């Protein structure tokens, strides 16, 4: 139960030519479930392995509470890990697999039995204890891996995409179970995944990484509603956030966004933020669910809005929602509406835009202005 602090963590290869992880500063609070989210190659697994001690950092520090563990071997860090392929030893029975960490730490025999029993109940693998891993399904093996990881009550629990090898249904079920388990045990957990749904549903905080850098860290709602960069905005949320290039213009009604085929006049407080960008191009972002079609559906809890015109291009009926692909100018905007909506292709519609949920990003740096 410790706080994990990463200070200026670096992992470089080939004399600095390849920077797998660069200048990473992150504090994981005691008992927190932190998700490291990012596409493959972003450095999240490398970071996890450095926390585990399986990789040596090129620079920076790793602290567990007050302890500097940067160069300590894994076995001295009091950690546990669930590997992507579970790494359940095939030549040992399930019982022995789960008991292994305890045996290494020289727990007395009867205590080992008790703990294994306790953890087996938690993970519902009591009947499997006497079997060999080859006799288990993927999902069962995964539970064994998790059981083994928590049986010893580590200071830090690390998980490397533990659900990615499971089928969809099992994944959803295990997500809930792991989160419940962690909440119960209150162990500091670092969870690596590339699946943004996992991140959103499980994390107390999400740390988004790209190309070795930490882009943003915060609770799921914050990362979702206030992305600090285009990458974060588009990586999280499905369907993806709509992005359109617009110019900032000063008009008689105020500062406005001029795009191809539409003009959005901004309320003064938002407009002011863009004063330095007048006559420059910026990226306008809006999530599909923050728009609606006038006359067809309404947006709830909307304080300020405006409308733009578009033409229906394509309808995606998902059952619970409908995605309307709309042509605005030469861009296609996706609008997500609840329920089953049918609109004829080619129909002219008026799109209502929630002005309190728009995002503006700098064209060059892709960082958020609003």
């Amino acid at each position, binding site marked *: 139960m410790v706080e994990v602090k990463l200070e200026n963590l670096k992992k470089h290869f080939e004399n600095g030519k390849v920077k797998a992880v660069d200048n990473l500063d992150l504090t994981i609070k005691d008992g927190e479930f932190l998700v490291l989210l990012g596409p493959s190659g972003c450095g999240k697994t490398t970071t996890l392995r450095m926390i*585990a001690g399986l990789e040596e950092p090129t620079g920076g520090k790793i602290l567990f509470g007050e302890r500097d563990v940067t160069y300590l071997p894994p076995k001295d860090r009091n950690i546990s890990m669930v590997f992507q*392929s579970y*790494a359940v030893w095939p030549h040992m029975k399930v019982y022995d697999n789960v008991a292994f*960490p305890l045996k*290494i730490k020289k727990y007395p025999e009867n205590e080992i039995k008790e703990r294994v029993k306790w953890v087996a109940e938690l993970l519902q693998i009591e009947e499997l204890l006497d079997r060999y891993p*080859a006799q288990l399904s993927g999902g069962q093996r995964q539970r064994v891996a998790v059981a083994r990881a928590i049986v*010893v009550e580590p200071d830090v629990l*690390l998980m490397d995409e533990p659900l990615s090898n499971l089928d969809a249904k099992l994944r959803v079920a295990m997500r809930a179970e792991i989160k419940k388990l962690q909440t119960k045990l209150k162990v500091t957990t670092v969870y690596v995944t590339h699946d943004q749904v996992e991140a959103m549903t499980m994390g107390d905080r999400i740390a988004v990484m790209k190309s070795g850098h930490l882009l943003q860290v915060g609770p799921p709602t914050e990362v979702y509603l206030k992305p600090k960069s285009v990458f974060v905005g588009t990586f999280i949320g499905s369907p993806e956030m709509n992005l359109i290039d617009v110019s900032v213009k000063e008009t008689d009604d105020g500062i406005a966004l001029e795009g191809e085929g539409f003009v959005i006049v901004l309320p003064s407080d938002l407009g002011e933020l863009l004063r330095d960008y007048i006559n420059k191009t910026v990226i306008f972002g809006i999530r599909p669910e923050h728009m609606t079609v006038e006359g067809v559906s309404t947006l709830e809890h909307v304080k300020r809005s405006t409308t733009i015109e578009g033409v229906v291009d394509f309808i995606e009926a998902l059952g619970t929602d409908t995605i309307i692909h709309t042509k605005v100018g030469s861009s296609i905007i996706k609008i997500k509406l609840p329920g089953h909506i049918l609109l004829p292709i080619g129909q002219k519609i008026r799109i209502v835009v929630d002005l309190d949920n728009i995002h503006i990003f700098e064209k060059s740096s892709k960082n958020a202005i609003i």
Partner: protein
Amino acid sequence: MAKKVSKYVPYLLVAPALIYLGIFIGYPMIEGIKLVFYENGGFSLATIHRAVNNYYFWPALKNTLGLAIIILPTQLILALILALAMNKVFKGRNIALTLLIIPMTLSDIAAGLIWYSMLSPSGFMNKFLLNLGLIHSPIQLFGYQFHTREFLTLVFVELWRSTVTIFVIVLAGLQMISQEYIEAAEVFGAGYWTRLRHILIPLLKPSIQTALLLRTIYAFSIFGIVMVLVGRDIPVLAGEAYRQVTEIRDYGVGAVYALLIAIMSLAIGAIYLRLTKAEYLEVKR
């Protein structure tokens, strides 16, 4: 028409090979048994008598077994150490691997002769030590009177030659073990020796068994290296079979020795298979 052909096709394809093996392995087996148990047209144990009472027989048997018992465990440990060392990537690893493989491509006669250049009275080692002043006269390793020395020399050279066979198999097995198994052990607190004992070696068991089985059987028919280094000073079973056939022309006795080697090999094979069933590999879902 096509259907009829295709039913027999698999058998047709395998048949020639099977027939061939039947002729060249099965037939000699039968022929061998005939040679051993039949003399002058009738069942007789006389051949076996001659074979067993031969002056060289018991020493040959003892030597063959003795060599095997000393060489095999030593080889195994050596090969394991080598495989563990070679598993890491390091500078010059490829050169080292290439060198290590060379003994596998040599005939055992060639291997013996190569080492003779090192160990003979005028060989490299003797001259080297002489010129360094560490010894005053060449150390004689060969010669009828130096039985123990000859035996140990054989052990040494055979180790040089055939440890690689085990090494290669164990290395292949080692590389097939997923790194994650080791890392998991590391994470959960196991130090190097613990990891070795509890994870690596159990997972290597199949490879070790295969290698050991192969080597044990070949150890029983050890021949060329003995002939070339020490001749008949250290009799071995295969060597005696050779002599009986080529010099003494007693095919019967030769067959006895040959069959004895074959039976010993089969017996060891069967025992191995019994003893070494790894439970975790046998279970099915």
